[in-house]
């Protein structure tokens, strides 16, 4: 082997080792989390997901109680149902509000706005995706929460007074609705960018064909262009959903940080899984049995599993959508 060839080989091997980096990190991360979460799982079992009380127990007790071989403070109970509900509801509000706006915006950018205008507007919306989540939180606290408290909340409560979940005291403006709206603004750029990109790739011919058949421009977009890219768009929506499920700081700032409280209406304060891990680690460290930290690890594992599942689903749908587009392109 010449020196040159050896150098080439060495370079290839080095890159191969580096390529293993992300895999090693992910395996170690998952291993450490599962190991950390294990005692909490043994202690709490399935009631971890169905219980509504998160209580580290009596921190002044001298002797811990033992359940399933795991030590906990007397009275310790780790149920995360309110967090699961808070996470799910806030992310669903984000989807219900954000997705229609994102799809309409993408359609407007591709079909409505003149090219030169959308050339300028698109990067501005992309920028929205890069804004730090604490800045979203700041905006939520300063602008959105007061707006929900003094205007949107009372109005919704009045207009939808027969719908049970919408009627009720509006409270401080910090809660489920505000969290959902902040998350909506955060996922809009994700869904908009992918949808816009996909719509721009829809072949011109079927679209024009639809118009030649007498469909209105709206009908051509709705019944020809969107179905063409639907799996990719659904993928982008699920991707945004995953982002909303895992968002920590912005939600932490505007959720009202409810403890052990199931929301009674859309204005109720909530907590999410991600925001709870961030908010409670400090106090969990004071648990002399260490069980509270394990319980937080179990939340982290749950969150990781959920976001991984949504992400994989989303990626495969986006890939499917792209492949579909390419296949259609080749057939022509």
């Amino acid at each position, binding site marked *: 082997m010449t020196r040159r060839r050896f*150098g*080439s080989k060495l*370079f*290839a091997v080095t*890159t*191969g*080792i*580096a*390529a293993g980096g*992300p*895999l090693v990190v*992910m395996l170690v*991360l998952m291993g*450490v*989390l599962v190991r950390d979460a294990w005692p909490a799982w043994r202690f709490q079992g399935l009631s971890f997901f169905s219980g509504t009380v998160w209580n580290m127990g009596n921190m002044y007790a001298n002797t811990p109680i033992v359940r399933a071989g795991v030590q906990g403070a007397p009275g310790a109970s780790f149920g995360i149902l309110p967090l699961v509900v808070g996470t799910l509801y806030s992310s669903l509000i984000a989807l219900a509000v954000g997705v*229609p*706006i*994102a799809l309409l*915006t993408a*359609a*407007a950018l591709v*079909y*409505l706005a003149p090219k030169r205008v959308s050339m300028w*507007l698109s*990067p501005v*919306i992309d*920028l*929205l995706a*890069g*804004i*730090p989540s604490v*800045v*979203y*939180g*700041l*905006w939520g606290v*300063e*602008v959105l929460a007061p707006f929900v408290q003094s205007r949107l909340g009372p109005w919704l409560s009045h207009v939808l007074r027969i719908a049970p979940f919408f009627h009720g005291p509006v409270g401080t403006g910090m809660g489920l609705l505000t969290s959902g709206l902040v998350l909506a*603004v955060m996922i809009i750029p994700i869904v908009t960018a992918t949808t816009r990109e996909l719509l721009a790739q829809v072949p011109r011919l079927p679209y024009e064909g639809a118009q030649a058949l007498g469909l*209105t*421009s709206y009908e051509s977009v709705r019944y020809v262009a969107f179905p063409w890219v639907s799996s990719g768009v659904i993928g982008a929506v699920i991707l945004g959903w995953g982002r909303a499920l*895992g*968002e*920590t*700081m912005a939600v932490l*700032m505007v959720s009202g940080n409810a403890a052990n409280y199931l929301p009674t209406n859309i204005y109720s304060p909530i907590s999410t899984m*991600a925001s709870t*891990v*961030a908010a409670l*680690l400090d106090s969990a460290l004071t648990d002399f049995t260490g069980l509270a*930290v394990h319980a937080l*690890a179990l939340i*982290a594992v749950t*969150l*990781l599993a959920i*976001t*991984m599942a949504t*992400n*994989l689903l989303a*990626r495969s749908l986006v890939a499917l959508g792209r492949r579909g587009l390419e296949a259609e392109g080749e057939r022509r």
Partner: protein
Amino acid sequence: MNARAIRSKAAWSMAALALAVVMFAVIDILALVAGKGAAALNGSIFTTMTTGIAGGLQNAIYGTFALVGLGIVLSVPIGVLAGVYGALFAPDPVAKFFRFVAEVMAGVPSIVIGYFGYTMLVVAWGFGFSLLAGGISLAILMLPYIVRATESTIRQLPHGYMEGARALGITPADAFRTILWKPALPGVLTGVLLAISIGLGETAPLLYTAGWSNFDPNWQLTKNPIGYLTYVVWTYLNEPYSAAHRLAYAAALLLTALVLLLHVAAKGLQRSTPAQ
């Protein structure tokens, strides 16, 4: 006008309205941060350290640069090499698998990385709240973006480059060393810039790894907590003092301005990548 034409008009009006709402949100966020932030910004912000809930942000600014800098130093070499492997050397199924891993990694919620950093780096490895623990956590967060940017950039280079090299009997490694790296550079740099902007804006992975310090970073890697800008935005907004609020706004403005700058730079770089 018939009913269908009216419906079409109505739908497009809704689309225009949606676009207006989104633009309004962007402008409202930027205006809030720019307005209140500019009012709070003055020279002493950059030259004094935080004292209690007032003072300046010098410690947080330096801390942010140190943390993001370390994150980049750790993630870029591994990420770029991993991307090169995926694009040039890996057999197809292997490349696919590594792409899959990078995608999974990019989807890990940042607070999960924060928890991992705490239990692994801060406690198990005994780094304490420190530059090293925070920097590694950020590196984990940035790594998949750099891998993806590198791999997709090299894959999107014109096929002729690689085919030409093959025809001349040049190994892929030499082809990369002599030719391919140059057209790939802007794309890779774009990925690095985006990774920097993600790192700048993160809070959750740093809460329990970097800690917080009122003093400038002292270049100790371990055991010494270090400040950063996003912490100021989050914590000081909850304080009941207007001096604290001003600091939070100043920090938010600095962060947003930096992110904006990075995005503009990234857009500029993107244009200079040759297309297939």
